[in-house]
């Protein structure tokens, strides 16, 4: 198959065509070699000659086979990213976990939905431990007392187990905020992990990720949590 001629063009320009021919032939051979073609150089003309190399054909077939396996491998690996995104309750407690505003069942059996009313800007979610329930509730009552009704902040507590839930249920005085005893797995795991670091979780619609704030630490007061929640 005749591709064309560079002779007239080169002659018109008055240049030596040999480097051009050699370069062109090299590039064409590199591009077409895998497809079983070779560019032949005839003085003044460039010819495309089909030369079926057995090794080239074997190479193409093997490349196709490996490509098929490679594609299968990619398809196999790809969903694992979706899976990890689905339930990111990482084994690493320091990881930012996917606490989502959904719901739970309070200690009294009532369904609690976290979908905040329009006036609520920030939801603060925290863990109450059965072992230190009195101090924990006192802390969060302190937070609540420092928040005005129009502050747009809502507090939601989670009990860490049956002991806490029984104590809250049996308490004469209300905590002043809902306390969840039955939660969604990822939310609960997120909060358990945050609580192991002494943190509560702040949620706000415009935030891409929840904010973790330390409250179980010496020197931390209800006012420090209020300050964070109102920021």
């Amino acid at each position, binding site marked *: 198959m005749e591709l064309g001629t560079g002779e007239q063009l080169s002659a018109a320009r008055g240049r030596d065509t040999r480097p051009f021919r050699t370069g062109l032939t090299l590039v064409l051979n590199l591009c077409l070699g895998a497809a079983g073609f070779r560019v032949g150089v005839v003085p003044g003309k460039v010819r495309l000659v089909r030369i079926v190399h057995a090794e080239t054909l074997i*190479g193409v077939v093997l490349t196709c086979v*490996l490509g098929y*396996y490679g594609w299968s491998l990619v398809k196999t690996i790809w969903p694992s990213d979706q899976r990890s995104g689905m339930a990111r309750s990482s084994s690493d407690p320091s990881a930012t976990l996917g606490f989502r505003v*959904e719901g739970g069942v309070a200690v009294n059996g009532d369904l609690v939905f976290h979908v905040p009313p329009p006036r609520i800007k920030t939801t603060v979610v925290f863990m109450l431990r059965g072992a230190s329930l009195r101090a924990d509730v006192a802390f969060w009552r302190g937070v609540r007392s420092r928040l005005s009704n129009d502050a747009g902040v809502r507090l939601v507590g989670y*009990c*860490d187990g049956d002991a806490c839930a029984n104590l809250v249920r049996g308490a004469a005085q209300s905590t002043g905020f809902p306390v969840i005893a039955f939660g969604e797995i990822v939310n609960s*795991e997120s909060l358990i992990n945050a609580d192991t670091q002494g943190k509560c979780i702040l949620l706000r619609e415009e935030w891409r990720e929840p904010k973790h704030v330390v409250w179980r630490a010496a020197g931390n007061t209800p006012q420090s949590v209020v300050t964070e929640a109102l920021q």
Partner: protein
Amino acid sequence: MKILRWANQGVMLLLGLMIVLDGGMLLYWKAVGDDSTRTADVQNVDHVYRLAGTHGSIAPPEGYTAAGVKVSIGSKSRSGWAVRYGTEKCEYCRQDKPRWVELSTALQRLGYQVVYIPPYANLGYPDDALTPSGARQQVYVGMEWIRHFRLVVNPTVLIFGPEGQLIWSHRGTLSSDGPQSAVRAIEAARRRAKGANMAGLEIGK
């Protein structure tokens, strides 16, 4: 022309080397993959516990459906119970369905009660998708149970004996031997329990 021949030979040589290397890597990956699949059912149960050293009896999960109906493991399930953590929205859970159906059917035959737990309440299975018949779903789970475990992979299967001891667990999709492996673990646990009871009777005599 010599340059062209060398270039051609160089390209072919490189292609040949890459094919050999790719082939070797493919064979290695398949061998490692098969091996990990075979050993996947012999997972260390420590991975599903939140805290080390908590391998005692754990009460079955109590929870609620999305409608707020309480779901507990019934007293009928004296054999034990199983927890299936997953969701229909998860690709791996869908891929795993045939083997899970096989396992859940075996669990039902062995008298185990099955509880489904989704990651979030809105990712729960429809009631008619729960297998075996009689399986229940808890979308809100008691913190008392959650705090013992780290459920980080969809799907995960946990199988507990009658005393609440974890006897088999698997994170990820089940291998072809998965259901049989679980049944073998259950039978082995039953033999151990029977042996312990017999030993107790001997001491009591």
